[in-house]
């Protein structure tokens, strides 16, 4: 029998998730107000947790020479088919310089040209040697005096009406349940992978582009607490290298490789010229290859055969800084990018606010619809094209806003949820575990069930990511039965207990996702959200955000729309 102890902690600001956004939020708060206590909790060790564990070779949202927050915002608007929160995109862009300079001062090597300026890689990108980008920002958070609790997994917010006043969490390394009170909370847990069937089966199922450990915890906690969410229907389906699912910007932008199909045709320039060809909006660059394959012109490649030996070597070095598996793949398959074009494919659909715009509906301070709760990074909605620097910027914005709020609000809220209820909910799969009992479900099986439903009925890879209402309704029906099965979930240890929480999170995210997909009756983002029953874009009726709230008492998801506000003039479809 497990003896679980309970610990009660108080802090001024609680940051859930010590990643890209969370670390920058912590530093910003501590620098502006050294007396303010900041506690970061992370389910991993912040030195290598989350998306940046393997490193990064570029900062993909930066204002190179002659670019401004306005030109960036116009570009991002066009890249996302004319619908973004321009206020959010612009405010993050205003902080790119501040954040990049700051992280460079912590030691991040940024490549420079002969003029001493950062070395561009495409319009909005600069090159870095970021193998250690994560330990660099984690060290800065610690040096700034943030307290860190590693291997502590948040499960739910502590609520006082609609005010968030802390979070429940449990350790995956010791038998400790945490009740953490805070005057302000910043959620920065990243997006969600593992919702759809993964690209590779068996022992390569976590060979994903997005961190497979990002399970939508922050989304799910917000959903369960009744926070308003936006744009889940804008799934991110990434064009990535075949099999190892490595980022393609390193190839397309890094070495200017054109897209070609199986016949050697530059299909983007032939069929998608008016959309920008090889530089078309990101959803189009996902949709066009899908069509090439579907219509019998696959495989699809990025053509790297113009590279000389030195060019190939530089390309390999760029991947070693971020995604070493790509280099291993080439040498394990007798592929040389100088001789063979690099085959690409589409990924399982992810839900992320940093590439797309699914997440919390936030105001310009990144405050969510729940008071006391701020969202930053992939978990925050409305502002795509964040990537690393935008997540940093949102961490800074949320940190500043949280600090301002606790100067005004000095008390702790009084949480209504009894810790006993949450304790029982969290630990029941562990207490239930019994190897002699036949009717128990390990989290792996549960996860596969979710993935099967979404894959087959909600636009998975095997159906070219396309969907129609009748199939989505079947997904809704199947998903609705899953919460009734939680009482069979079992965990043989604390690691599996974490996985149990993660599948529960995935169910909550999946249910909201399907409602959003059903609700938007147009195809706004081809490839990401291809509605066979509403194949056209419909600006007259759908140039607006699809949002939702969940009510835990009635188990009901309510959909609503929020207007789009055009702040910057100009053509919304060309940036």
């Amino acid at each position, binding site marked *: 029998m497990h003896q679980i102890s309970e*610990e*009660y*902690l*108080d802090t001024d600001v609680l940051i859930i998730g010590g990643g890209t956004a969370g670390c920058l939020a912590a530093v910003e708060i501590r620098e502006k107000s050294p007396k303010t206590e900041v506690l970061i909790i992370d*389910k*991993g*060790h912040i*030195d*290598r*947790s*989350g998306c940046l*564990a*393997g490193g990064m070779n570029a900062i993909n949202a930066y204002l190179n020479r002659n670019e401004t927050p306005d030109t960036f915002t116009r570009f991002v608007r066009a890249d996302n088919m004319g619908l973004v929160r321009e206020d959010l995109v612009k405010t993050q862009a205003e902080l790119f310089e501040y954040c990049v300079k700051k992280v460079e001062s912590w030691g991040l*090597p940024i490549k420079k040209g002969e003029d001493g300026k950062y070395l561009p890689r495409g319009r909005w990108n600069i090159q870095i*040697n970021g*193998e*250690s980008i994560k*330990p*660099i920002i984690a*060290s800065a958070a610690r040096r700034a005096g943030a*307290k*860190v*609790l*590693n*291997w502590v997994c948040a499960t739910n917010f*502590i609520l006082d009406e609609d005010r968030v006043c*802390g979070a429940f969490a449990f350790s995956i390394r010791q038998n400790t349940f945490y*009740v953490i*009170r805070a005057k302000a909370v910043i959620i920065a847990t990243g997006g969600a992978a593992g919702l759809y069937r993964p690209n*590779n089966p*068996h*022992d*390569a199922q*976590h*060979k*994903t582009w997005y*961190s*497979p*450990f990002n399970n939508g915890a922050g989304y799910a906690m917000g959903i369960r607490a009744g926070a308003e969410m936006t744009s889940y229907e804008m799934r991110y389906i990434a064009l990535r290298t075949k*099999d*190892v699912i490595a980022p393609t910007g390193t190839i397309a932008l890094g070495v200017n490789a054109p897209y070609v199909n199986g016949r050697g045709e530059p299909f983007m320039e032939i069929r998608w010229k008016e959309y920008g060809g090889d530089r078309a909006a990101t959803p189009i660059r996902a949709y066009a290859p899908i069509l090439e394959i579907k219509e019998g012109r696959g495989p699809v490649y990025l053509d790297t055969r113009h590279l000389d030996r030195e060019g190939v*070597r530089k390309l*390999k*070095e760029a991947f*070693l*800084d971020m995604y*070493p*598996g790509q280099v*291993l*793949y080439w*040498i*394990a*398959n*007798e592929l040389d990018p100088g001789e063979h074009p690099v085959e690409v494919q589409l990924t399982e659909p992810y839900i992320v606010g940093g590439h797309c715009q699914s997440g919390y509906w936030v105001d310009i301070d990144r405050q969510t619809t729940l008071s006391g709760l701020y969202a930053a990074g992939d978990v925050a909605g409305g502002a795509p094209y964040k990537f690393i620097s935008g997540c940093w910027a949102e961490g800074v914005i949320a940190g500043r806003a949280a600090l301002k709020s606790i100067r005004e609000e000095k008390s*702790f809220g*009084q*949480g209504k949820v*009894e810790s006993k209820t949450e304790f029982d909910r969290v630990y029941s799969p562990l207490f239930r575990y019994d190897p002699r009992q036949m009717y128990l479900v390990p989290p792996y099986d549960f996860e596969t069930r979710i993935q099967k439903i979404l894959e087959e009925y909600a636009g998975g890879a095997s159906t070219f990511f396309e969907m129609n209402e009748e199939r989505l309704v079947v997904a809704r029906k199947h998903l609705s039965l899953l919460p009734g099965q939680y009482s069979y979930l079992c965990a043989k240890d604390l*690691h599996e207990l*974490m996985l149990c929480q993660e599948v529960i999170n995935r169910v909550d995210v999946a249910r909201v996702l399907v409602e959003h997909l059903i609700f938007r009756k147009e195809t706004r983002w081809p490839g990401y959200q291809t509605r066979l029953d509403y194949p056209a874009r419909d600006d007259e009726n759908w140039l607006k955000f699809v949002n939702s709230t969940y009510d835990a008492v009635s188990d009901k998801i309510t959909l609503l729309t929020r207007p789009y506000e055009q702040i910057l003039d100009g053509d919304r479809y060309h940036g």
Partner: protein
Amino acid sequence: MPVYVDNNKCDGCKASKNPPCVRLCPGDLLYKDFTTNKAVLRDKAECWDCYACVKPCPQDALEIKLSYQIGFFSASLRPEILSDEKIGWSAVDTKGKVERFEIITKYIPVPVDEPESEEFVDSGATI
């Protein structure tokens, strides 16, 4: 695309209770078996191939291999921390041809043992 532990090299970081690979896996996938004194991967299928465990291993005992469905034997790719400012990589292809890389970085040394985290004071509050 799992990480493999070379049991001829792994010494469990001797007396360490929490060796670097166990600390730094972002998915909590490695643990130390105190009976055999070796690091163990919980499940091949869960590894993300991020090299977070490989880079700081003092015994050079961890290696990422492609799942066989994705890549042939016996290609290998191994990092080596050359200094705080340089990381090396050795790539050996299926024919045994070796290619070496040296890349600038800002590596923060990882101690075998990390000091116990600071004490957190239980507020004693009841909610």
